[in-house]
């Protein structure tokens, strides 16, 4: 048996790992380890279960990395033209799946108390890994997981299927090993079905998988592929957005004047692309409508009143609202990087400001966008805080304001290619800022007015300092040319 080929297949995910932001990943890893250590310190009696669950999560992440890599290697041309490639890919996937399922089940079985039988744990782990593999190829499965439980219980399917579930339970108790064996065979077949032999169906599924994979990688670098990555349904959903932006472009062009506001209004369409304020606003409105409908559906189907759950869910809703409102604005510098090639042409257009004027105009365009998003989101948080009677929710807004100045006002000419870390860093900073403010309010009993003032003073000082540096920097566009 030629193990070298299997090694190449199995270890490809490690060899092809993203090496662009090692410090970001190390920081994330350190944070995860720190979180685990803190949990063990706070609850020492749960050391073994915590370590077991953490190890199981690591194994599941490993499976995710391996199966994505194997599916990527299963290119239709390779599957058809390279001898034994498909068979070796299948074998590698099945052996990885079996080993990791077994390891996850064993870890939980040995270290967690009050667990169901080992057979059931093994079946659960194997089913979970199989689902992960399929959900990485077909994104619609995540929707099933998101709304499936609500629909399942809300529509009473659990009650209707109770006799069937009872029959399966009886069968399991009578013949656990037979049922386990059959189930594992079906799951193994499902894992093997992830791979194709280079025919038309394989080409179609690979295209879908590759599109989503690339969109996901791009989004980690701050470039949003748009809903088109989700196939025809995505294109249909994004059509109103495209029409709105196209309408805005027609308006901006038809009212063109050789004035700075008019020029920057047109330039912004190119500079920010899919992060344009109109695109983002529509996205947020759509997100809010979907969230509202989901909550109403969930509460209605669960048979509970909205008001009763309002307070309990306020924190979750605030985090969702803040993420939706603040995070896209933090991605604006990344968009400058992604539109840098177009910026060479923009720089040569008559009317486009030059030198210091250009630096000011670009910075102000981004700052205005971020401050508007901040003001609207903070107002939304205020409404939520008022409705839930929990004023401390405003801390999220206070935590985000300094970032609007600190993160956005950087000289674009010196910016480096955005990495996953550069995309996540402002989000983490905002979360820590918000939590920090909340902790100050909770532990030191600092009034919210003091926290708001602190946030404002920090933001103004940071903004003034960054603005001076930014204005003195080389011409802002094309971005990243001096990196």
């Amino acid at each position: 048996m030629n193990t070298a080929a299997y090694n190449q297949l199995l270890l490809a995910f490690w060899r092809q790992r993203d090496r662009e932001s090692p410090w970001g990943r190390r920081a994330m890893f350190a944070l995860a380890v720190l979180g685990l250590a803190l949990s063990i310190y706070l609850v020492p009696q749960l050391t073994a279960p915590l370590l077991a669950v953490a190890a199981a999560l690591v194994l599941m992440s490993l499976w995710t990395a391996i199966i994505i890599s194997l599916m990527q290697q299963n290119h239709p041309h390779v599957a058809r033209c390279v001898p034994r490639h498909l068979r070796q890919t299948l074998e590698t996937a099945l052996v990885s799946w079996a080993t990791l399922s077994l390891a996850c089940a064993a870890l939980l079985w040995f270290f967690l108390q009050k667990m169901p039988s080992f057979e059931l744990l093994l079946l659960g782990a194997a089913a979970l890994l199989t689902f992960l593999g399929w959900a990485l190829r077909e994104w619609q499965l995540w929707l099933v997981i998101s709304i499936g439980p609500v629909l399942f219980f809300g529509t009473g399917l659990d009650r209707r299927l109770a006799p069937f579930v009872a029959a399966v339970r009886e069968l399991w108790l009578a013949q656990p090993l037979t049922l386990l064996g059959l189930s594992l065979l079906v799951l193994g077949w499902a894992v093997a079905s992830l791979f194709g032999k280079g025919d038309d169906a394989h080409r179609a599924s690979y295209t879908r998988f590759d599109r989503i994979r690339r969109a996901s990688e791009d989004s980690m670098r701050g470039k949003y592929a748009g809903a088109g990555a989700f196939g025809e349904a995505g294109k249909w959903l994004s059509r109103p957005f495209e029409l709105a932006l196209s309408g805005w472009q027609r308006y901006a062009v038809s009212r063109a004047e050789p004035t700075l506001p008019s020029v920057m209004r047109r330039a912004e369409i190119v500079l920010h692309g899919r992060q344009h304020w109109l695109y983002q606003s529509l996205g947020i409105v759509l997100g809010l409508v979907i969230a509202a409908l989901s909550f109403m559906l969930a509460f209605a189907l669960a048979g509970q009143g909205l008001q009763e759950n309002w307070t309990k869910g306020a924190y979750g809703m605030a985090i969702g609202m803040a993420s939706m409102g603040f995070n896209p604005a933090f991605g604006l510098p990344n968009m400058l990087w992604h539109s840098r090639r177009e910026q060479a042409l923009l720089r040569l257009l008559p009317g486009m400001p030059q030198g210091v004027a250009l630096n000011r105009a670009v910075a102000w365009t981004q700052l205005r966008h971020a401050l508007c998003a901040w003001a609207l989101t903070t107002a939304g948080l205020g409404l939520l805080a008022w409705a839930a009677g929990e004023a401390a929710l405003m801390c999220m807004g206070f935590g985000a304001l300094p970032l609007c100045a600190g993160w956005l006002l950087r000289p674009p000419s010196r910016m480096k290619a955005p990495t996953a870390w550069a995309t996540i860093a402002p989000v983490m900073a905002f979360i820590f800022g918000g939590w920090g403010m909340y902790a100050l309010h909770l532990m030191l009993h600092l009034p919210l007015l003091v926290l708001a003032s602190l946030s404002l003073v920090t933001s103004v000082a940071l903004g003034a300092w960054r603005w001076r540096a930014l204005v003195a920097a080389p011409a802002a566009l094309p971005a990243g040319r001096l990196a």
Partner: protein
Amino acid sequence: MSTHFPHTETPSAELAGVSLSYAKHGPVLKSLDWQLLPGQVVGLLGRNGSGKTTLLETLLGLREPDAGTVRVFGQDAGRLDDAARARIGYVPQQSDLFEGFTPAQLLAYFKSFYPRWNEAKVEGLMSRWDIARDKPIRKLSGGQQQRLSIIRALAHEPDLLVLDEPVASLDPVGRRDFLRELVEQVLDRGTTVVFSTHILSDLERVAFNLAFLSEGRIALQAPLDELLEQVRAFTGTVTELASLFSRLGAQPLKRTPLEAGRERVLARLPAGVAVPLDAQAVNLEDLFAELT
């Protein structure tokens, strides 16, 4: 002198002592001097990675040199006024730009910035080059994207046209059409054109001047017909060739040492000098290989 190589005192673009380095790649341009005179058509030749794109971007003020000056229409290239920018057309190397726009949107967008816009020319080229007006640019083929980029650059009738490998994605028919358009542009309006390319046969059709970029400098710039007429390859001992060049007044351009004290030298003869019988004629490919 050819009408396409008119003598004038005021260059369309002028680079003097320009040096530029990248932090990770070291120096790219080294004390480079270059002039583009009005109405000149200059083909910029250089090996891959020799800095052609950097040079063209520096010429347009899109990159700031570490040393030296760059002037376009007599103005500092980094601070061109609106009138000067309205006289420049640029086709960058990448044609997959503005992918979210349709061609119609792209052209309307650029039209809104320029004081002058030749709608008839745009319409004519759009029909002749068969470009769908309302199809997203990302769905156009590479050749169509490049054609659109060229139409955009020609639409405002620039006086200085800078093209960075403009025909790389075009098929032979597309290249022929583009070159015809370029020649018409020059004949009609006396536009100064500089373009980089690797397709030497295209240069023979339109580039009346050739500039060879080598080791960060313009190693040689001269009209193509003069180069083909005056540049010859000589083989002999070092002493023989030194004596020959001294007698003919020839300018050695490139020396390649051979065995036994002999060498092969590419040299440019002065105009009007009779070419020695043992000198080898060179073609454009030889010039590219030897001078870049």
